[in-house]
C-alpha cells in the first residue's frame, strides 16, 4: 500500500498538500449501474409472474434460468467491484515539490507518472456542463515544457481552488529551486544563454 507519509522517492521536508480523487458522482454512477442491473432480473421475474408463464416450473428451464440468474448476479458484482477499483486507484497527489499522477486503466494497466513543480509552465482549470457547473467539479490541466505531455486531473472537486493552490506551490518551488523550463531552454540553445562575463562598467 502507498502511504502519504512515505511516498516513493520522497525528499526530506517534502509535504503532501493535496490528495485528490475523481468527484464522488463517478462512484455514485457505479452504484447506480449496480442498482439498475439488479432491478432487471426482478423486472423479468415480475413479467413472468404477471404473464402466468410456467417456464420456471419446467424441468430444464427452471434450473437453467436459475443458474443464468446466478451467473448474472456474480458478473454484476465483479463489474461493480472493477468500477470501484478504477475509481479508488485513480489518484493525484500534489506535494511541495512535485505532482504525482496515478491512473488505473481497467484491471491490468496502470500508469504512474510525476513531474516537478518547477517544470510547470501553465495550469488550466476547466468546468463544463450543467452538473459540473452546478456541483463545481471539473478538470485541471498542468502543462510543462513543449515536448512533455500534460497532466490531467479528471473530474475533481473545486478545480479552480486546486489550480490556485498548485499555482502558489509552483511559485514557491520555482523561488526555491529555479525555473527548470528556463534551464532546459538554455541547455538546448546555448547561443541565447545569458553571458557569463559581467558587463563592463561605463562609469569612470
Amino acid at each position, binding site marked *: 500500500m*502507498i502511504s502519504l507519509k512515505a511516498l516513493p522517492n520522497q525528499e526530506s521536508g517534502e509535504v503532501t498538500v493535496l490528495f485528490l480523487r475523481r468527484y464522488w458522482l463517478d462512484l455514485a454512477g457505479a452504484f447506480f449501474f449496480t442498482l439498475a442491473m439488479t432491478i432487471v432480473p426482478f423486472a423479468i421475474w415480475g413479467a413472468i409472474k404477471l404473464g402466468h408463464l*410456467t417456464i420456471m416450473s419446467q*424441468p*430444464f428451464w*427452471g434450473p437453467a434460468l436459475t*443458474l443464468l440468474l446466478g451467473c448474472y448476479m456474480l458478473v454484476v458484482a465483479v463489474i461493480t467491484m472493477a468500477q*470501484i477499483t478504477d475509481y479508488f486507484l485513480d489518484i493525484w497527489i500534489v506535494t511541495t515539490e512535485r505532482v504525482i499522477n496515478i491512473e488505473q486503466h481497467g*484491471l491490468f494497466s496502470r500508469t504512474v507518472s510525476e513531474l516537478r513543480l518547477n517544470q510547470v509552465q501553465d495550469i488550466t482549470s476547466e468546468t463544463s456542463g450543467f452538473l459540473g457547473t452546478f456541483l463545481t467539479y471539473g478538470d485541471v490541466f498542468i502543462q510543462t515544457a513543449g515536448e512533455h505531455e500534460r497532466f490531467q486531473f479528471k473530474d475533481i472537486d473545486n478545480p479552480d481552488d486546486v489550480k490556485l493552490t498548485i499555482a502558489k506551490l509552483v511559485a514557491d518551488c520555482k523561488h526555491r529551486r529555479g525555473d527548470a523550463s528556463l534551464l532546459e531552454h538554455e541547455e538546448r540553445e546555448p547561443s541565447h544563454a545569458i553571458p557569463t562575463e559581467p558587463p563592463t562598467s561605463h562609469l569612470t
Partner: protein
Amino acid sequence: MTAFHFPLWYLLIPFSIVLLATTVYMFFNIYHIAKFGMQSFGTTVVLLLYFGGYLAVLGVVGVMVSNIDWHHTVTVIEILPFTGSSTSTFGL
C-alpha cells in the same frame, strides 16, 4: 426411438466456470486495492465491502442453486419450452 436423457448437473459445469472466473476476478480486485491503494481507513472499508458483498451474492446464489434436484434427468424434448412435463425440479 428412445429420447436422449442427460442429468441436470451437466448445467453446473458452465456455471462452475463462471463462478471460478468471477472469484478469480474478485481476488484480482482485492489484490489491486491491497497493493496499490492508499494506506487508509477507506481502503479497509472497500476491502471489507468487496469480501462482504461477494460473499452475500455467493450466499444468495448458493441458496438458489441448492433448492434444485440436480440428479433429475431431462430429455432433449423437455428442453423446448412449454412442451415438456411441468414437474418441478425445485426441492420445495
